[in-house]
């Protein structure tokens, strides 16, 4: 039984990697590939960030420093290849350089900031972030201000015939690095060091009492996390062939914090889910509506208020049911469908209202909501969407209680199963 399970896991692994390898054949457009590449980079970044937040319990507002500065260093190396200073440097090892820069910076800044924990640590990281952002604008010779630096990745010797001109070659580069570094980070959580990090997070005094130097562990975790962030920054620079001051800014740090938290910090896979979904949302929403920041904010607040374990937590909630009594899932299906429909009602009503209000500021009276053209001068339409929103709220409330009742029954059932 056990071996079958293990084999099953292997097959899944294999299948996953196989799919990822064939993605560029499914999606040939360079936009889709750029998006995949961005996701890959941000997966590394957010998993690295979660090493700090989820596993060691340190909240940082300045992780973009390592991401961004490693990116700057890589782009300088890239333009060094462009200008024939070291033409034989292969591009695929640039992430190593980025990782080294990240490690070095993490080592120094970590030394200063891991003396403190909790809010003090968070504030120190915020201070460093603002400091570095301000410096990137002042030191023009290295950072080139708000213009950032451009470089050409189609350069130098073409090892293995890779020019990195076509986006899919970059995709494979990032895929390789993504799997490689996520794997290492996963293995790290399995080592005694990883366990020690958890111990420091959960109970500092006890960990100290057992004989560990907690500060050293935090420092190590910090440096390693910065190292992987550096590798991600390097790949970011290769992907966009450009790096600018916004990659070291508070906005970027906040983004990775959101990714890790929305995905779920309690789980190793959480940040990966978070990175994928938020990147997708960020790109797609901004394309569809001008009020996307509002929707973004509302989604965050709702996830934080109702799903504190993040997306991964939401999915893993079902784990005990699947493991013990999968047949009970059927019982949940109907309330879930109703809940889904109520949410849909609410979303349609609410977003249409927002779009209507938004359109009042522009000079056009006709707007397109969900493929239908409506006029904001029509009084009935306003009433219709207000009613729809109210209906959605009521339906959501009702179906939420219903789902909760069924859920509690199911969990009770499983608990009873344990007792028997």
């Amino acid at each position, binding site marked *: 039984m056990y071996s079958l399970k293990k084999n099953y896991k292997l097959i899944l692994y294999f299948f996953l990697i196989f799919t990822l390898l064939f993605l560029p054949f499914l999606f040939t457009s360079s936009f889709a590939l750029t998006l995949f590449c961005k996701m890959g980079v941000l997966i590394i970044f957010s998993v690295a960030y979660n090493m700090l937040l989820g596993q060691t319990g340190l*909240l940082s507002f300045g992780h973009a420093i390592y991401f961004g500065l490693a990116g700057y260093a890589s782009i300088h190396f890239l333009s060094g290849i462009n200008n024939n200073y070291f033409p034989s440097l292969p591009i695929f090892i640039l992430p190593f350089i980025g990782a080294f820069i990240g490690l070095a910076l993490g080592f120094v800044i970590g030394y200063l900031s891991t003396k403190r924990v909790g809010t003090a640590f968070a504030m120190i990281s915020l201070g460093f972030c603002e400091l570095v952002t301000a410096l990137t604008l002042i030191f023009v010779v290295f950072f080139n201000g708000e213009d950032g630096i451009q470089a050409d990745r189609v350069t130098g010797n073409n090892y293995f015939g890779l020019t990195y001109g076509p986006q899919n070659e970059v995709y494979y580069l990032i895929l390789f690095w993504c799997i490689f570094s996520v794997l290492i980070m996963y293995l790290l959580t399995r080592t005694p060091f990883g366990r020690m990090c958890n111990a420091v997070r959960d109970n500092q005094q006890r960990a100290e009492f057992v004989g560990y130097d907690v500060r050293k562990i935090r420092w190590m975790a910090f440096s390693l996390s910065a190292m992987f962030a550096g590798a991600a920054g390097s790949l970011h620079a290769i992907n966009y062939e450009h790096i600018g001051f916004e990659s070291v800014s508070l906005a970027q740090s906040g983004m990775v914090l959101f990714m890790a938290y929305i995905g779920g910090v309690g789980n190793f896979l959480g940040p990966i889910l978070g990175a994928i979904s938020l990147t997708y949302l960020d790109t797609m929403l901004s394309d569809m509506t001008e009020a996307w920041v509002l929707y973004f904010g509302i989604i965050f607040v709702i996830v934080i208020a109702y799903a504190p374990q993040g997306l991964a937590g939401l999915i893993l909630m079902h784990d005990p049911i699947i493991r013990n009594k999968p047949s009970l899932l059927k019982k949940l299906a109907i309330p879930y469908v109703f809940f889904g429909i109520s949410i849909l009602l609410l979303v349609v009503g609410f977003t249409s209202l927002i779009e209507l209000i938004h359109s009042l500021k522009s000079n056009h009276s006709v707007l397109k909501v969900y493929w239908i053209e409506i006029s904001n001068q029509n009084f009935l339409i306003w009433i219709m969407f207000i009613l729809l929103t109210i209906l959605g709220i009521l339906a959501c409330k009702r179906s939420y209680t219903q789902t909760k009742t069924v859920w509690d029954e199911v969990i009770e059932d499983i608990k009873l199963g344990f007792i028997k």
Partner: protein
Amino acid sequence: MSIEVLLFIIFNGLLYGMFLFMLSSGLTLIFGMMGILNFAHASFFMIGAYLGYQISLYSNFWIAIFFAPIIVGYMGAMVEKYGLRNIHKYGHIAELLFTFGLFYIIEELVQMIWGKTPVSYKVPELLNFPLIQISGMDYPAYSIFRLVLSILIFLAIYRVLSKTKTGLIIKASLTNPEIVAALGHNVPRVFSNVFGFGCGLAGLAGVMAGNVIGTEPSMALLLGPIVFVVVVTGGLGSIKGALVASLIIGMMQTAAVSLELNLNNAFQYLGFNVDVNSILNHFTSITISQLSPIVPYLLLIIILIARPRGLFGKRDV
């Protein structure tokens, strides 16, 4: 440095410092008491500015300065009651992220209601005249009014916190919420009120500053981090600390702006010159004045590493 320059530094620093104090005093209370790092604090400041504009459009500034902070405070209390209180059980990070999300929502709502460009929020005509003059530089009555009002507010908060029973309950809830609750006080309500009051202070700062620094949707984003510097430097929950920290930051930044010195000057003093075209010159020619924006953040880092309880805090951050 002449006496004239020194005078300017002190006076400009005082004005700027008291602005910072108004902005961050509310957060000092909130952070000290509830441990919530309210990222949306500057957003409440922004709402205050916009409400001040809107109300003074329909009536006048004096009605705005009275009602806008009350509305903002009420909004803050509602946010605490229906949002933050439910999230409290998930820990400080969740609370902080909630306010982070709130920040985005408020920014976009403000853009939806008042548009993306600055609104024309004007200084009240009654106070729009030069009141005092310091060697040729005018200071309008409105600046002095802001200065006086912020000093009064400091005195009022200080007195309430240290001399009244309300202050006692607030301070006790800060350290021992369970015992205060056991004594029959409604601690969640105290929290709500403090949060509302803190936001109201931010709103008041917004009404008073919006017509000077310009009322526009990005003002919250730009002021966000500096608020934390003041709160942390001053010390948790210490209103006196917030005042001193604001004044120090105000003076330091103003002084830094006045210094046209750079490393090249220092090298010259030591007897050698840096080549104007060398790469080194890019670094050594940067003046202290240009580095003034990083002063607060340097202060923040140094304080936290050396003395994490801040200037007047009673416990570590």
